[in-house]
């Protein structure tokens, strides 16, 4: 019997009602009396020397209050990068200044140059056309390998080259890996591109800055996944505003997928301008602006080698990756191709020797940073593609080859510095074979062939490191922040509860799932519990939502705070029941004395805490509110096995995704309905990457895919119903809920199986064999590869 409330119940989402009735409160729905509007004049050239900006005519236009330029921001800080990478020679990465508005130099299409603030947006836009720029176009550098050649133009003159860092991991393994590859019976080599993507949450970014002169208080309303991170980065590093004078509010946010983690220039601008003009200042991104100003994702060019012994055991993996940073370092850009990617290169396999080399490169393109999965999809894609390729070269079954090399004993320390606590990769593969109906594939293929089509089945495994992250570890690795989270459990006098959390919900349903945990712990109905998030003036200092961390990290903080509350409540109950607190049990919302029929209700205890007439005031304080900070002991390691079945029309190269199945191990699960939905959404994004999406620059740095007309988003007809199962559960061993995180799995686990399926379909035909096709697998690419 499925439960109808508490942990494990598919409780319906309470946030749905406001979203379904048009009563959500997204940042663009916020309008403040007296607010002005800003329009950014953005670069339409990729690389130029900016000699001067003449704003006089624009400032004289109707409704214009002021036109800001880069010179106005010379005295403030640049947009900071939150992670220092040390290269393989022990040197710090090259870290150029990232100005709020371009100053002296333009480095990518879309870079903001001037900001026009006017009474209306239309006036600001009109006035921007009257700004005169004095600039000299410079040759742009777009291709990463060209960017690191000695003759390349430099994106940043002050740096020695366009190479941000050359990172080796684990550098001490390098020789052992080289030797293992040299001595291997078989080596499969694959060169591939992990295509550049644009995250495209449906809500574009918005920022509304406010300033109150009477108390010198700044408020920023913004579309953020982590308001405290923005407050820290913008306050401390850019604008020099102390925390107690800066409030950051992220209300309902319409999807993030990573791209709303980062601190952006527009946020700093609106906060700065609100004080300069003593008026609220609002910016709403258009979708076209989003394409050229939201941080992009992926964009790796990789060569991977997989070495096997004569018995098909994996003996070594060696990779060399070029990772595009774009023109500036976005907030977590430097960590994505390194610590979020290199540490996963062992995958689900007991490969003894692994070496990962990553060259991060500056180019005249939009900054690149984390997008759903962040580094882990890149790791999974190359590994799971090269394994499939090896199976094909060796003529062995790709599932058997994987199974043979699975890690089966836990905890398992990989050669790339992480320790997997639990997992059961055979179990998820067994489950996949069942739900994807591998047994029926032959018949389905025959049916497709009768219709003149080719059918392919592709599978892959994945492992990810989630629940980001142990602070002391990431500190050693260069993180400039701690990655704990925090929660305050405030019990009200009549027993209802407000929980203030550092995590931010922008589609994940925390307002529903977090109360399920508290309800289970205390035994009161879920509707007695409310979650408060997204406002630094209300919540404790938590680090927000990304890296599938909300429940594993913030949820753990919430559990710890609730435990403190329960311990204190037990003392109060003991007093009321005239028993010793060691004998008090809490069940179904009642405290009772073990072995007796004496009991007192939750609400009576909470009332006593706030009306402490009969109360042990000498021993404990009145009130019932506790805060906990939780710093995880390790990452969590969700894993799984995915299968994609495609039907390919050999005449046109058109691929139809016919079936998609996912068997995941997320450890314990709080709300299965929500978890399933997260996997669905991730799979669609993975199918989007594999089949449709690709961000394209021309050689001059013009962004060719700058709207939904040229950037293909997955639509309802592009995807099938998915079969999703998460009944294989090996609970996380080091957090109190045993949860692992589920938000990114779908996007990490799906691209390789799509590509593997297409290669399999082509191989089943009579034409020439195709070893690899780069994503997205558009009909023209597939058709061309088959000719």
């Amino acid at each position, binding site marked *: 019997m499925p439960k109808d409330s508490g942990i494990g119940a598919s409780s319906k*989402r309470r946030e749905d009602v406001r979203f379904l009735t*048009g009563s*959500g409160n997204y940042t663009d729905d916020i309008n403040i009396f007296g607010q002005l509007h800003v329009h950014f004049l953005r670069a339409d050239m990729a690389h130029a020397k900016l000699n001067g900006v003449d704003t006089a005519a624009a400032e004289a236009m109707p409704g214009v209050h002021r036109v800001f330029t880069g010179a106005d921001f010379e005295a403030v800080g640049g947009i900071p990068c939150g992670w220092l990478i040390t290269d393989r020679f022990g040197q710090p990465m090259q870290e150029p200044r990232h100005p709020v508005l371009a100053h002296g130099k333009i480095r990518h299409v879309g870079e903001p140059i001037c900001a026009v603030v006017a009474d209306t947006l239309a006036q600001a836009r009109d006035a921007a056309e009257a700004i005169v720029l004095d600039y000299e176009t410079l040759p742009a550098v777009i291709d990463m390998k060209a960017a690191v050649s000695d003759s390349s133009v430099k994106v940043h003159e002050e740096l020695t080259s366009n190479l941000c860092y050359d990172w080796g991991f684990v550098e001490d393994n390098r020789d052992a890996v080289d030797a293992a590859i040299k001595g291997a019976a078989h080596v499969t080599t694959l060169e591939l591109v992990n295509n550049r993507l644009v995250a*495209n949450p*449906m809500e574009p970014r918005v920022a509304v800055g406010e300033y109150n002169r009477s108390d010198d208080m700044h408020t920023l309303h913004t579309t953020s996944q982590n308001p405290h991170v923005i407050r820290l980065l913008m306050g401390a590093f850019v604008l020099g505003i102390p925390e107690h004078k800066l409030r950051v509010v992220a209300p309902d946010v319409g999807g993030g997928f990573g791209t709303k983690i980062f601190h952006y220039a527009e946020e700093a601008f609106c906060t700065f301008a609100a004080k300069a003009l003593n008026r609220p200042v609002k910016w709403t991104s258009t*979708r076209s602006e989003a394409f050229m100003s939201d941080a992009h994702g992926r964009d790796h060019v990789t060569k991977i080698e997989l070495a096997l012994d004569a018995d098909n055991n994996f003996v070594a993996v060696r990779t060399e990756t070029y990772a595009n940073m774009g023109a500036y370092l976005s907030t977590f850009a430097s960590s994505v191709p390194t610590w979020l990617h290199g540490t996963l290169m062992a995958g689900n396999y007991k490969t003894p020797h692994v070496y990962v080399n990553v060259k991060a490169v500056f180019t005249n393109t939009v900054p690149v940073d984390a997008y759903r999965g962040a580094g882990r999809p890149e790791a999974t894609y190359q590994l799971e593609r090269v394994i499939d390729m090896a199976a094909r070269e060796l003529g062995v079954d790709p599932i058997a080859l994987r199974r043979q090399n699975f890690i089966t004993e836990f905890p398992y320390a990989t050669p790339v510095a992480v320790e997997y606590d639990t997992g059961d990769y055979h179990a998820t593969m067994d489950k996949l074979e069942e739900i994807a109906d591998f047994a029926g594939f032959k018949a389905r293929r025959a049916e497709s062939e009768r219709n003149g089509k080719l059918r392919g089945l592709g599978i892959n495994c994945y492992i990810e490191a989630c629940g980001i992250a142990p602070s002391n570890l990431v500190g050693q690795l260069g993180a400039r922040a701690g990655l704990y989270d925090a929660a305050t459990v405030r019990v009200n006098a009549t027993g209802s509860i407000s929980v203030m959390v550092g995590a931010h919900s922008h589609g994940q349903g925390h307002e529903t799932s977090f109360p399920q945990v508290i309800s289970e712990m205390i035994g009161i109905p879920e509707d007695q519990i409310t979650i408060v998030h997204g406002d630094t003036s209300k919540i404790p200092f938590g680090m927000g939502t990304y890296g599938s961390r909300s429940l594993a990290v913030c949820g753990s903080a919430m559990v710890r705070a609730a435990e403190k509350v329960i311990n204190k409540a037990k003392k109060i109950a003991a007093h009321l029941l005239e028993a010793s607190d060691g004998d008090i049990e809490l069940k179904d919302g009642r405290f009772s004395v073990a072995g007796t029929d004496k009991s007192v209700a939750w609400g009576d205890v909470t009332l006593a805490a706030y009306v402490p007439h009969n109360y042990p005031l000498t021993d404990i304080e009145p009130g019932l509110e506790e805060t906990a900070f939780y710093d995880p002991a390790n990452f969590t390691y969700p894993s799984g096995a995915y299968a994609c079945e495609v039907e390919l029309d050999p005449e046109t190269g058109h691929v139809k995704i016919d079936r998609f199945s996912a068997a995941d191990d997320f450890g314990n699960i709080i709300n299965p309905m929500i978890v399933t939905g997260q996997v669905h959404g991730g799979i669609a994004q993975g199918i989007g990457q594999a089949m449709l999406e690709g961000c394209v620059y021309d050689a001059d740095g013009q962004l060719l895919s700058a709207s*939904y007309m040229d950037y293909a988003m997955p*639509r*309802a007809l592009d995807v099938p119903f998915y079969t999703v199962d998460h009944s294989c559960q090996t609970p996380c061993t080091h957090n109190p809920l045993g949860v692992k995180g589920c938000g990114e799995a779908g996007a990490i686990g799906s691209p390789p199986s799509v590509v593997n399926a297409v290669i399999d379909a082509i191989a089943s035909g009579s034409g020439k064999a195709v070893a690899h096709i780069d994503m997205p697998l558009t009909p023209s690419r597939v058709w061309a590869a088959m000719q």
Partner: protein
Amino acid sequence: MLRLMASMRFREDFHVRVSMTVNGRNVSGEVEGRTLLVEFLREGLHLTGTHVGCDTSQCGACTVHVDGMQVKACSMFAAEADGAQVATIEGVAANDGTLSAIQQAFQDHHGLQCGFCTPGMVMAAASLLKANPKPTEHEVREHLEGNICRCTGYHNIVKAIMAASGQEMPALAAE
């Protein structure tokens, strides 16, 4: 009328008075010739349930009904809706707050996550089911051609719409 509007398009200083019925309420206001219907709804009437997700009329977040037809409110000038009956997401639930069958199905089947595409999805679904009360899965997907959702992967949206049409799909239950 439409021709007159076309000649006004590029005259931003040109103000026009518009009147229309929105969710059964008579409203009027002064707009610029270039004001879009979605801007009038959001900024003029503070009906912020209708969202803007793009600037090329491709995402469907702004979907409303004008005189019973499904329309992208970013692809129409406010002045073009003068005299029209406009229905937005705010008018879909009953006055006492009871959700419509489609809204309820979206909640029951987890057909929304961040909620940003949701008003447009609900309005699109309503117009589909009006014209085609028992659509097939393929017809539902085809009808959503102009509505992008980045969160749900469409699975539960399609299922919710099928369920709202009275065609339960037990094998595909959300959980």
